[in-house]
C-alpha cells in the first residue's frame, strides 16, 4: 500500500516508478479494492481517483494474462459495487472507470456474449505490437467476451438502450469475425466503422427513443443480411480508415462532459494504442482513405439517416480526425491537453468536427494575448530538475511574452488588448497611489498591525487588490481597508471591497451647486485639486460633481470619504488591538449622546490622558458605517471619535496629525449627521 499512497502524491503518471514487481501488483490492488469497498470516501471519491487510472493501466500493461483477467474481474466489481463515487452510486467516479475501460477494451464496452461464440478470443489480449501489423488493423479491440460487463443503465422504457446495445454488439462481433476472415473487405470494414460510431454514440448516453428505434431497425437489417457482398481487396486505402477509427476511440463523450479530463489523463498514461498509432501513422493513403465512401448501400443509407438526425458525423470525419488530431498528440502531448482544456472551457463539443471548429475560434480569441503560446512553450520545454538540464543554454527570454512594461515599476503585462487593459489599470493604480501619497503628506502614516493567522489565511481578495485584479477605477481604498485587522473572526474583505466600490460610485454622484464667488474655495483641501465646473441643464445651475460641502469648505466626496476611512481604520485597529476596554471604559458618554457630548478619544491619545478634562472637541461622522456595514455594531467608541486639540501630546508629528484630522472633521455635527443618515438611507 505504501507504494500507492506515495504514488498518490506524484504529479504525473510518467514519474511513477514501477518499483513493485509485476507479480506483486495484484495483491496491492486487492488491498486498494478492499479499502475502497470498506472505507469508502474519501478514498473512493478523492484519494484513489487521482491516480487510480494511471496506476491501474500501468500495472495492467505489465502483468501477465491471468493477472489481467483478475484485474478485469476486479474492475467489473467496481462497476457493480455500490459506493459514493458517482451520483449513480458506483464505487469510483465514473470517468475514472470509463477511462480504464476505454483504455483496456478500446472504445468498445462489450456486452455479455454467449461463451464459445468466439472462443479464439477468450483471454486473448494482443500486445501492442500486434496493432502495427497492417493486415489486422481492427484487432486492438477484440470483444472481451470473458468479462461480462453490464451495459450502461437503461434510460427509457420501450426499446431500452441495453437491448439495442446488445444487438449492436452482437452484430459488431459478427462483422468483425467476418472481417477477420477477409481483411480486405471494404464493405465490412465500413460496416464495422459505422457500428463502432453507433456504439460510441450509444455509450455516450442521451439517445432519444426515436433514434433507438431507428438504430434497432437498421441493425435488424444488418443481421438479416449477414452475407455482405465481398469486394476484392483492391483498396488498401481503406485500411488506415477502419484502423484509425477503431484505434483512436473517437470521443463520444460530449454529453458526459468528461471528455477533456479523460483524454488529458489518457495522454499521460501509458496506453498501448499510442504505439499502435505510431506504427500506423506512415501508412500509405491515410489521408486518401478519408474521402472514400462506404460501399454497402444500406450502410450508407443508415449513415445518411443518422447523419441527418445529427447523431453521427460524416463517415469521413472520424478518419480525418484519427489522422490529424491523434497523431500530433504523440509527438507533442502537451498542446493537445491544452487544446482539450480549451474545449472543456467551451463546454460543448457536438462532434469532432465542431469541436475543432470551436478550437479554432477560441484560439483566435486568445491569440493576441500570447499567454497561450507561452504556456504551451513552457510545458513543452519541460525543464528537468537536474543540474545538466538546468545548465543548458536555452534561447528563451522568460519575459519575452510580456512586452508591456510599466514605466513606473517595471511590472510586466502580456501583449494584446488584455495586457494593455491590465497595464492601464495598473497605471491607474499608480496614479491613485501617488495621489494618495500626496494627500497623506504631513499627516503622518503609521505601520499597521499584522493580521491574525486565521485572517491571513483568508486574506485573498485584499492581498492582490490594487495591482492585479483591480478593474474599478475608484476602489483605491478597498485594498487598505481589507488589510486592516478586523475584530470579527471572519474576514469579509471581499464583500467589504464590493460594498466600498458601490459606495464610491454613490459618493461620486454627489454634487453641490457652485457657490456665488468660488474663488478660494475651488480647491479640495485634501487633494488640492480644483473642482470642475459643469453646467447642468436640468438644474439650470453650475455644479461641482463628486463634491460635498461641509460647513464652509468644499471637499471631493471621495477624498473626504477616503480620509475619514483612514482615520476610522486607525481607530478600529486601536480598538481591536487593545480589546477596546480601556477606551470604552473611558468614554461612557460615547454612545449615549452622539450629538454634542465629546466622548473619549480613540485617536492618538495616551491612555493616561484620556480622562483629562476635555476642553474643545470636534466630532467626526463615521464613514465606517457606510463603508463596512458588518462592523457597524462594533462600538460606540468607534462610531464617534473626538479629537482634543489641546491634549498634551508627545510629538509634533502626532500633534500635526491631530490637527489635520481636526481640520478635516470640522463640519457641523448636525450636517455631518444628516450626511450619515442620508448615506444610510441610500
Amino acid at each position, binding site marked *: 500500500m505504501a507504494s500507492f499512497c506515495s504514488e498518490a502524491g506524484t504529479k504525473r503518471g510518467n514519474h511513477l516508478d514501477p518499483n513493485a514487481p509485476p507479480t506483486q501488483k495484484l495483491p496491492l490492488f486487492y488491498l486498494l479494492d478492499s479499502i475502497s469497498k470498506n472505507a469508502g470516501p474519501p478514498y473512493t471519491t478523492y484519494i484513489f481517483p487521482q491516480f487510480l487510472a494511471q496506476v491501474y493501466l500501468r500495472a495492467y500493461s505489465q502483468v501477465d494474462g491471468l493477472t489481467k483477467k483478475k484485474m478485469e474481474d476486479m474492475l467489473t466489481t467496481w462497476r457493480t459495487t455500490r459506493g459514493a463515487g458517482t451520483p449513480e452510486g458506483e464505487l469510483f467516479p465514473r470517468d475514472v472507470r470509463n477511462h480504464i475501460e476505454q483504455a483496456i477494451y478500446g472504445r468498445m464496452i462489450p456486452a455479455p456474449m454467449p461463451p464459445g461464440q468466439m472462443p479464439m478470443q477468450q483471454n486473448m489480449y494482443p500486445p501492442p505490437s500486434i496493432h502495427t501489423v497492417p493486415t489486422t488493423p481492427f484487432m486492438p479491440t477484440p470483444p472481451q467476451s470473458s468479462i461480462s460487463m453490464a451495459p450502461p443503465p437503461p434510460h427509457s422504457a420501450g426499446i431500452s438502450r441495453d437491448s439495442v446495445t446488445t444487438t449492436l454488439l452482437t452484430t459488431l462481433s459478427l462483422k468483425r469475425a467476418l472481417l477477420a476472415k477477409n481483411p480486405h473487405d471494404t464493405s465490412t470494414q465500413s460496416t464495422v466503422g459505422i457500428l463502432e460510431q453507433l456504439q460510441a454514440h450509444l455509450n455516450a448516453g442521451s439517445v432519444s427513443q426515436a433514434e433507438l428505434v431507428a438504430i434497432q431497425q437498421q441493425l435488424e437489417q444488418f443481421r438479416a443480411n449477414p452475407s455482405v457482398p465481398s469486394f476484392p481487396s483492391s483498396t488498401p486505402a481503406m485500411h488506415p480508415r477502419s484502423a484509425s477509427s477503431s484505434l483512436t476511440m473517437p470521443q463520444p463523450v460530449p454529453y458526459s462532459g468528461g471528455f477533456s479530463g479523460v483524454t488529458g489523463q489518457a495522454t499521460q498514461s501509458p496506453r498501448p494504442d499510442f504505439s499502435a498509432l505510431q506504427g500506423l501513422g506512415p501508412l500509405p493513403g491515410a489521408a486518401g482513405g478519408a474521402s472514400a465512401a462506404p460501399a454497402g448501400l444500406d450502410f450508407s443509407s443508415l449513415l445518411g439517416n443518422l447523419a441527418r438526425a445529427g447523431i453521427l458525423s460524416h463517415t469521413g470525419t472520424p478518419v480525418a480526425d484519427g489522422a490529424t488530431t491523434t497523431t500530433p498528440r504523440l509527438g507533442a502531448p502537451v498542446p493537445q491537453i491544452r487544446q482539450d482544456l480549451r474545449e472543456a472551457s467551451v463546454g460543448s463539443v457536438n462532434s469532432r468536427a465542431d469541436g475543432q471548429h470551436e478550437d479554432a475560434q477560441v484560439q483566435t480569441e486568445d491569440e493576441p494575448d500570447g499567454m497561450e503560446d507561452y504556456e504551451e512553450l513552457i510545458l513543452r520545454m519541460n525543464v528537468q530538475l537536474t543540474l545538466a538540464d538546468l545548465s543548458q543554454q536555452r534561447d528563451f527570454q522568460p519575459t519575452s511574452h510580456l512586452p508591456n512594461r510599466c514605466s513606473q515599476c*517595471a511590472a510586466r503585462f502580456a501583449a494584446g488588448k488584455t495586457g494593455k487593459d491590465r497595464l492601464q489599470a495598473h497605471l491607474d493604480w499608480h496614479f491613485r497611489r501617488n495621489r494618495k501619497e500626496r494627500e497623506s503628506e504631513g499627516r503622518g*502614516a503609521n505601520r499597521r498591525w499584522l493580521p491574525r493567522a486565521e485572517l491571513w489565511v483568508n486574506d485573498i481578495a485584499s492581498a492582490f487588490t490594487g495591482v492585479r485584479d483591480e478593474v474599478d477605477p475608484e476602489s483605491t481604498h478597498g485594498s487598505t481597508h481589507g488589510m486592516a485587522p478586523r475584530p470579527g473572526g471572519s474576514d469579509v474583505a471581499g464583500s467589504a471591497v464590493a460594498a466600498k466600490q458601490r459606495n464610491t460610485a454613490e459618493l461620486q454622484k454627489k454634487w453641490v451647486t457652485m457657490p456665488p464667488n468660488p474663488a478660494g474655495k475651488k480647491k479640495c483641501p485634501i487633494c488640492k485639486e480644483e473642482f470642475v465646473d459643469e453646467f447642468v441643464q436640468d438644474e439650470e445651475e453650475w455644479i461641482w460633481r463628486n463634491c460635498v460641502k461641509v460647513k464652509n469648505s468644499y471637499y471631493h466626496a471621495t477624498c473626504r470619504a477616503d480620509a475619514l476611512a483612514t482615520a476610522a481604520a486607525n481607530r478600529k485597529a486601536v480598538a481591536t488591538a487593545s480589546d477596546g476596554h480601556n477606551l470604552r471604559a473611558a468614554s461612557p458618554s460615547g454612545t449615549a449622546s452622539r450629538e454634542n457630548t465629546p466622548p473619549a478619544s480613540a485617536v492618538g491619545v495616551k491612555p493616561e490622558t484620556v480622562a483629562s478634562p476635555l476642553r474643545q472637541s470636534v466630532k467626526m461622522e463615521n464613514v465606517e458605517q457606510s463603508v463596512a456595514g458588518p462592523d457597524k455594531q462594533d462600538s460606540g467608541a468607534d462610531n464617534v471619535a473626538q479629537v482634543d486639540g489641546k491634549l498634551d501630546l508627545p510629538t509634533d508629528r502626532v500633534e500635526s496629525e491631530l490637527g489635520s484630522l481636526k481640520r478635516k472633521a470640522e463640519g457641523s455635527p448636525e450636517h455631518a449627521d444628516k450626511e450619515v443618515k442620508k448615506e444610510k438611507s441610500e
Partner: protein
Amino acid sequence: MSIPGFGGDENPVEDLSETNATTFHLEGKSEWRFEVPFKTILSLKVTEGVGEIFGTELPLNVPVQLTGVKYALYAPLPEGCTVEYSTRINRDQAPGSSDSTDISEYISEDTPMNQYINLHMALESYRQETADYNYLNPSSPRSGPRVLILGNRSAGKTALARILSSYAYKMDHHPVLVNLNPRDGVFSLPGSLTATPISDTFDLESANGYGGTTTSGSAVHNPKQPVVKNFGFLSPTDNLELYKYQVSKLGVVVMSRLEEDADVRNSGVIIDTPALNIKDINVIENIVSDFEVNVVVVVDNERLLIDLRKKFKHKISNSQLAMVKIPKSGGVVELDDSFIRQCQEETIKEYFNGDRKTPLSPFKTEVDVKDFRYFKGVLSLDFNPSLSFLPSGDSYTTDDMDEDRKKDENSMDKFYTALEDPDASKLENLIIAITQLPQNNKQPKDLLNTCVLGYIHVSRVDEARGKMKVLSPMVAAIPRNILLVTTIGYTE
C-alpha cells in the same frame, strides 16, 4: 510637464552632493556587482534595455536609491543594458566612523543566472501543469511547487529565493515567500519567521530590499501582508526546539492558505533558510514535511546534496521529492557581522519610521510596566546547562529531551518563561513582540501558536515610577496582549 499624481518632478533628487555620474553599457548575460556602504547612497537607473537586481526589474529611467547593499544588476537580454549611476553621501548615517564611503563594483560575465532562470522555467512548467490539472479537477486541487532552498552561509540562498519569487511574480504568479532565517527580517523584524504572498515587485529601496508591510498611508509598492511567527532569537540554535515548533506552526498556516487561495496554490511556496547542514537533518526533515516540500534546491553543497539524497531516498524514489544542486554565484560576498547588524538596525528603523519615500510617524508613549504580561524565549543553554559542556563538534540531540517532553507535556519551560519582575535590565533597549493573544489568556500553549501583531521598542524603564518609555508603530494605546521579549537590541 507634471502629470498630476505621477509626481514626475515633485521629488527631484538633490543633486547638490552628487559627486559623479557614470554611464556604462552592461553586456547581455553579464552582471554588474556592486557594494554600497551605508554611508553612501547609490542612485542607479537603467536608461536602455533591461536590467534586474535579483530578478526585480528596474523601471526605465527611474532612479533607484540604494544604500547598504551588496547587489548585482543582471542584463538578461542579449543586447544588454545601459546603466547610469551616481553616488552621494547618506546624511542619515552618523558621520565619523572610519568606514569607507566608496562603492566597490565590477562586471562579471560568469554568472549562474542561466541556471537560476532555467530553474525558474522548471518551476514555471510545474505551475502550469498544476494550473491545468486544477482546472480539470477542481474538486481535488493540487499545489504548485514547494521549493526549499538549502546551502551554506553566504551561498546566495536569499538571492536565489528573491530571484525565484520575482520571476514568479513577473509571470503573474503569487507564491508564498517563506523566510525561516530569523537573522533577516523579511517583511518584518529580525527574530521572526515569516510567510508572505508575493503580490508585487520587491521594493529594492527598502532597508532589506523586500519592502514593508501595510501602513495607514500609501506606499509606492503594494504592501505585502506577511504572517509572522516570533522566534525571538537570531540563530535557530539558540533554541532549536522552539525554532522547530514555530516552523511547523508556520507551515500549518501556509498550507491552509494554499488550500484557501487558488492563486497562491497554483504558484506554490519558496522557502529561504538559514545555513543548515546535514547535522540539522531533523530540522530539514521538519521543514520538508511541514511545508510539503517537493523540490529541494541545494546551492553549491555537493556533500549536503548527497547526504540528503540518502536521507530522502524513499521520497525521491517515489517522485515525491526532486532534489537538485545549483551552482553558487561567484558574486556572493561574505557578510560580516557588523554589516548584518546594521542591516537589522535599518530594518527595525524602517519598521517604525518608514523609509525616505514613505516616512512613518511612530508613537512614543509611557506606560506602566505592570500593565503587561511578559514572556521571553528560553535559551536552550540556560534550560539545559549540561549542553554547554558538550565536547565541541558534538551536536545537540533531541533524544534526551524526549523524556522531558513526556514528563511535562504541557509545559512551556523549554520554549518560553514568564518574566515575573520585569526591570530595566530585562526590557530596556529591546524589541518586544506584541502577540495576538490577550493578556487574560490562561492557556500557555496558545502562546506558542499565536502570531505577531506588531513590535514595540522599550527605550527606557523608570523603575522608581514603574513606567517605561515605549516606541510603538501605531498612534494608539498599546494593545493589552501578551508581550514576548526578544533578544533583539535596538537603540534609536
